[in-house]
């Protein structure tokens, strides 16, 4: 059981919890929380798969010289991707919450059972 496999399992478990929360709960805010959990889990998965055994952050300084960087640094690409994913996840959450505010104003409830217009 290596360090990054524990992190990977944690991230995958968080994604599962998030999907479960989105599918079972009827309150819109809880669905949004489930979505956030799923997003956080996927960020953790992305960072975990970028780990290289014995690696450190890819920042060149006294602790990590340029010569030993290719063998002692973790993969910088997933980390750069995670920064992107976090910002986009935050943006989507903001839009979801804005919709939740408007939906509450229209029906005075946050239960999705009240919104049957687009249900087939």
């Amino acid at each position: 059981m290596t360090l990054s496999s524990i992190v990977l399992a944690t991230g995958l478990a968080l994604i599962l919890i998030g999907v479960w929360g989105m599918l079972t709960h009827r309150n819109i805010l809880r669905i949004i929380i489930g979505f956030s959990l799923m997003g956080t889990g996927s960020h953790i998965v992305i960072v975990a798969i970028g780990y290289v055994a014995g690696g450190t952050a890819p920042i060149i300084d006294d602790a990590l010289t340029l010569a030993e960087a290719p063998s002692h640094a973790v993969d910088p690409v997933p980390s750069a991707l995670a920064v992107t994913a976090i910002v986009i996840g935050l943006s989507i959450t903001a839009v979801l919450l804005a919709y939740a505010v408007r939906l509450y104003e229209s029906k005075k409830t946050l239960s999705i059972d009240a919104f049957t217009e687009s249900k087939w």
Partner: protein
Amino acid sequence: MTRRATVVLPIALLGIIFAMVAANYSERTSLPPLAKAYVERVPQELGAPNVITGILLTYRAFDTLGEVAVVFMVAASVGLLLGGAPKRESAGEIDADHPTQSTEIIRNGADVLVPLIAVFAAYIVLHGHLSPGGGFQGGAVIASCVLLALLARPQYRIELARLSLMESLAGLLFVLVGVAGIAFAGGFLDNRVLPLGDFGALFSAGAIPVLSVLLGAKVGCELSFIIERFRT
């Protein structure tokens, strides 16, 4: 009962897939060729010690530009969804659910913390090429500073016109620095339009600190705008 089955079945299948992924995962022992090239080239070609910032603000800076466009679009759509005249204000009523004064603890805490958080945000943005941090992270810290100020003084109104002016200006300058890269260096958003300077110094790595500051200002303005919109 059928609803329960439609929930349990996808979760179980997803769980099986994830279990297989986790079981077959083995930790990597060396970098893939692309990552190795980035780790070697960012310090040498771009002069930035932080490889991730080098990727985000030069090699993949076009993606960063697109991402900032997404955040801008989100700010615009949140403004569209939550915009309109604030009802509470027009009525002019003060009720217990919407107090106009926060507690003394929050107000005094904000007085001490807001300047410190602002300085910390500036530090994160300016040292993006040297240490963990950069425009996005610093921008988020700026927005948290705005959020704390708004919690402490609920009646404080952000000047949205000035915010959007600063946001547009930062975006315009970001693109202009990118176009300067076409004219004076290797391509769009190439950081070598400015001298690379000493490796590891504050003013080094060409245009990366400039882009970092612009990105921080833009993201900070957009997130502050979103926070401001959620208040009404």
